[in-house]
């Protein structure tokens, strides 16, 4: 995974998003350990405090849990929790698109039609693979 240090998205959020998508995709399964703070910090070249902040947030969401002296593990409901979060991310990405349409003064019908076109194009692209 890579971090984009020039992005407006704070790095702790980028790390959180990455772990969520990795859990949703099954890279880390329930009961498995995720990388330690130190390993993650060195791997991504970021401050360990930032990784910790990301892990704390994931812990609050119920995606991971700490086991004393061992590290952070994906919880039993981790995959479901990650998928719910991913749905929220998709929802907010759509929201951003709609807002961009409004900002450009596009009529509602056009925004809908544009969504339909994107939907079709992406699906054609995927089935073409």
């Amino acid at each position: 995974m890579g971090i984009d240090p020039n992005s407006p998205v704070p790095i702790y959020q980028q790390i959180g998003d990455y772990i969520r998508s990795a859990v949703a995709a099954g890279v880390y399964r329930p009961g498995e350990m995720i990388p330690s703070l130190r390993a993650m910090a060195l791997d991504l070249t970021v401050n360990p405090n930032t990784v910790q902040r990301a892990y704390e947030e994931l812990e609050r969401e119920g995606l991971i849990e700490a086991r004393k002296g061992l590290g952070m593990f994906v919880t039993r409901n981790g995959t479901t929790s990650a998928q719910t979060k991913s749905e929220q991310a998709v929802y907010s990405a759509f929201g951003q698109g709609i807002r961009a349409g409004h900002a450009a003064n596009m009529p509602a019908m056009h925004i809908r039609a544009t969504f339909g076109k994107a939907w079709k194009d992406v699906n054609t692209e995927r089935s073409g693979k």
Partner: protein
Amino acid sequence: MTVNTPFDFAIETAGLTKRFGDKAAVDDLTLQIPPGCVFGFIGPNGAGKSTTIKMLMGVLRRTSGQARLLGFDVANRAEKVKQRIGYVPELHFIYRWMRVSDVVGFCGSLYETWNDKLCKELLALFELDERKKVKHLSKGMVAKLALLIAVAHEPELLILDEPTSGLDPLIREEFLDGVLRTICERQKTVMFSSHTLSDVQRLADRVGIIHEGRLLVDCAADELLTGTKRIRIVLRDGCSPSEPPDGTIWQRFQHREWQLTVRGYSPASVEFLQNKYPVESVEVTDLGLEDVFKDYIKGQRALV
């Protein structure tokens, strides 16, 4: 034996000022950096970053104000305190005729807490050839050697003055890796000045922006990004902007389009504009650290 005086802040200044003639290079600077914090110090060339760091290190005498490192006044720092601080200056003072092994041996003899094992690890990580003379090292190699001798005694506080300027991206990453390794081991406080904002994003959990000797911002790195937004509104014909919302740090009006960068943004910032002006459309976007930094400085320059 009063070395371990308790301190709330690893670095603390109050009203720190340095004048060169009439000009204040550093003007009434107040900083409080808690232990364990990685503080990124940014500002345009000549803003006062190096002058501040030199005063903290006791290389330059302050005109007025207070400055403490690890609880000790920087003006009369005892030998014992120096042992607990690591410093990489803007220009590396390393004897050019020495071999890398001589430099390491020389510096090692100065510190009681010099860690030979860590030193060996860093020599290997940085691929520094011990037999080479300093004058035959590349710029990147000298920078890595400077970092090595600043951290091998495992200081509690590490101060770096533009450590990665002029280094290629690969050496920069190795250098940052070296800094991170030292942060990861024990809770350490780091202050570093830089123009490479992506490095600041990676390492700093707190950011200070200095401009013309004055500190404009000092806050958590994440908060600076999430709390600062760019608003772009298009105004109806025949209307021109006057009063911007609170927290505006930069603005520009051009051909119906009013762009504003607002610190401490909330939906109320947009409501304020919508209530006050006939607005055609509104768009709010997030900003990266580089844009936030540039808008702060441009906003300040526009005030003059």
